[in-house]
């Protein structure tokens, strides 16, 4: 294999690899080959994969997993925007090198979730440019759609197939595939909307709280949603034009809020790293922590942020 190495000796294609696997044997072999050298050197390793896959790893790898931080990706990655913050905190805590196995895209995820998880995969390439962090992302080639696998080649500089790592010719330097930024579908006809400006903050919090409570969100989640909406609305009146539009609706199993304004979010990692907590970054960080899925569409023409809270 090649190649140019980075400052810390990790080749670019090693820094973020997609593992295309079919069946448990390839899954286990691919992960073992990735983590074994680090384990042998006594370096930190973390694994975040869906619960059933964690169970498989536990039963097959046993004691070998003892020094590894194990996380259930069903929980951690429910909102994919929460994954980078957790890996960054691991780097803060134990320093690099770090080897991390993350499987944020699994068969059965909704198209919206897969879009945001694909965006997350692209942003990984930008998240820790100078750290000695190697990431392996398993993709189930039997059960995932072809488009998902094409996008994985776009978001990963290296792809492992049949136990061989090779450079991905489709890799796009951290730019999300265009499919990630398709316009959001229109809100449903029964969405209720409020125009707002800075004087309306208090009134809007009460408005969202009442609607969320009558929609069946429990008290704790209502409080979280009110906190999240307040951040979105505050970002608008602080950074963008002095006014914007807030929409609220319910869909099967969830409550959805959306804020539309004339601003532009220039930092693709806003809300995912603490260094970006100045300005609106802290507010977006909170929204990501409080909501189950956050879809951001931003350009110089304006920004729409749609946040989903499960019932």
């Amino acid at each position, binding site marked *: 294999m090649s190649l140019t190495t980075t400052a810390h000796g990790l080749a670019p294609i090693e820094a973020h690899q997609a593992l295309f696997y079919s069946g448990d044997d390839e899954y286990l072999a691919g992960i073992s080959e990735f983590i074994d050298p680090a384990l042998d050197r006594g370096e930190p390793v973390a694994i975040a994969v869906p619960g059933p896959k964690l169970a498989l790893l536990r039963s097959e790898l046993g004691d070998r997993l003892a020094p590894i931080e194990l996380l259930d990706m069903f929980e951690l990655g429910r909102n994919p925007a929460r994954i980078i913050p957790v890996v960054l905190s691991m780097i803060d805590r134990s320093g690099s090198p770090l080897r991390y196995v993350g499987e944020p895209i699994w068969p059965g995820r909704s198209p919206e979730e897969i879009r945001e998880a694909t965006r997350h995969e692209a942003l990984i390439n930008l998240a820790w440019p100078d750290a000695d962090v190697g990431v392996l992302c398993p993709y189930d080639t039997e059960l995932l759609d072809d488009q998902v696998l094409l996008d994985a080649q776009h978001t990963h500089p290296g792809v492992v197939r049949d136990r061989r790592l090779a450079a991905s010719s489709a890799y796009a330097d951290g730019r999300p595939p265009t499919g990630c930024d398709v316009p959001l579908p229109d809100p449903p006809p029964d969405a209720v909307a409020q125009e707002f400006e*800075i004087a309306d*903050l208090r009134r809007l919090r009460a408005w969202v709280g009442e609607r969320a409570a009558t929609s069946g969100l429990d008290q704790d989640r209502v*409080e979280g949603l009110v906190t999240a909406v*307040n951040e979105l609305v*505050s970002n608008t009146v*602080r950074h963008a034009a002095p006014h914007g539009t807030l929409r609220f609706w319910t869909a099967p199993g969830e409550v959805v809020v959306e804020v539309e304004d004339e601003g532009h979010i220039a930092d693709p990692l806003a809300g995912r790293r603490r260094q970006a907590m100045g300005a609106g970054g802290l507010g977006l960080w909170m929204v990501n*922590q409080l909501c189950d899925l956050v879809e951001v569409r931003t350009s110089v023409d304006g920004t729409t942020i749609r946040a989903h809270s499960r019932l």
Partner: protein
Amino acid sequence: MNTDFTVEEHTHGDASVLRVSGELDLRTSPELEDRLSRAFDAGAELVILDLRGIEFMDSTGLRVLLSAHQRAHESGRRFALVRGADQVERVLTLTGVRDLLTVVDAPEELLAAGDQPSDGA
């Protein structure tokens, strides 16, 4: 003046306790920032911000707390919070800001026993 936000200040020796109530958001945070600055300007060695009366706090409120913490740290003084409602605790926790700050259940935990309360300005 915001009718949904008030600050009462009491001094105890070289400590200053700011008891705030209402909602701490983009509109009301500047007033708190100003009052905290004045407490430090007046020479308080310990500034305690009592959040028990706060019903809601957002990221602009958090930034005010962080800047007071920073100012105390840089000038070798102390800044502490009295724990607020669940929403306030949650915002402090999920941003990691809580780990940076001293948080107590009541101001008395930090005030010297002999200090006589007196109304400050």
